């Protein structure tokens, strides 16, 4: 795995809030495929975009992004 990988929980947050990729992309002012690439971990956002994503979901940025993989729901803590 690339040592510069940034893990994120955009898919989970989006599903939880019932927001489509296109809606999120429109709110952030990015192409909807960019949201898809972010979710797949193939693109790491700039600090500005990361903060705007966190702001959109109204959570701290560390809830959305992490340098370590997020624990699976129901997995051991």
């Amino acid at each position, binding site marked *: 795995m690339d040592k510069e990988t940034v893990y994120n929980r955009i898919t989970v947050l989006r599903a939880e809030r019932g927001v*489509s*990729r*296109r809606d999120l992309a429109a709110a952030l*002012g*990015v*192409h*909807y*495929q*960019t*949201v*898809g*690439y972010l*979710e*797949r971990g*193939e*693109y790491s*956002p*700039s600090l500005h*975009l990361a903060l705007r994503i966190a702001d959109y979901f109204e959570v701290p940025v560390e809830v959305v992004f992490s340098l370590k993989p997020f624990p699976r729901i129901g997995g051991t803590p």
Partner: protein
Amino acid sequence: MTSKTAQWLERSRRKRSDRLAALEDEMERRMPARYARRRPRRVLAGAGAVTLGLLWVDAAVSWVIAPSDTAVIVNLVVLGVLVAVGLPLATQLVALTRGLTAKRARELDERQLTARLRAFATAHRASTVVIAAVLLVTMAADRDGRESQIPGAALFLILFALLVTHIFLPLIVATWQMTDPPIEDDEDRP
């Protein structure tokens, strides 16, 4: 800038943005599903590179045999192939990359700008190699010094091939470097 000019500019930008969004949805709808995979995309990029190469072959042929009827026939055949194959190919490449190399910077997001920068950087390096190769080949081919006779057609075709390479190489590179698009959610489909 007066407020009227600013308003007109803003209106014009909005109209262009709406037109581009509609065009992109249409391209999305018409894009064959096979281009979601890397191999068919790279085959298309390779076809683009071969078409560019054809222009260089044409220039070389003109250098060797122009002025002659054969050179004119070769030129016409290459021109025909460019119109019949090159133009539709270029259109497909633009649609596939969603105009990545042609759009204005403010119409792209940060990921697209990064992808464009990467494509332009690679294409710039490749163009440098092409120009250096042309320089070496012309130096090697032109051995008569002051007596040398370079056909005007060949000179024109070399410059034309350089111009077309300069314009289209970033598009070909951008297609080659594209990663598979994410699978769309059902609610994401336009």
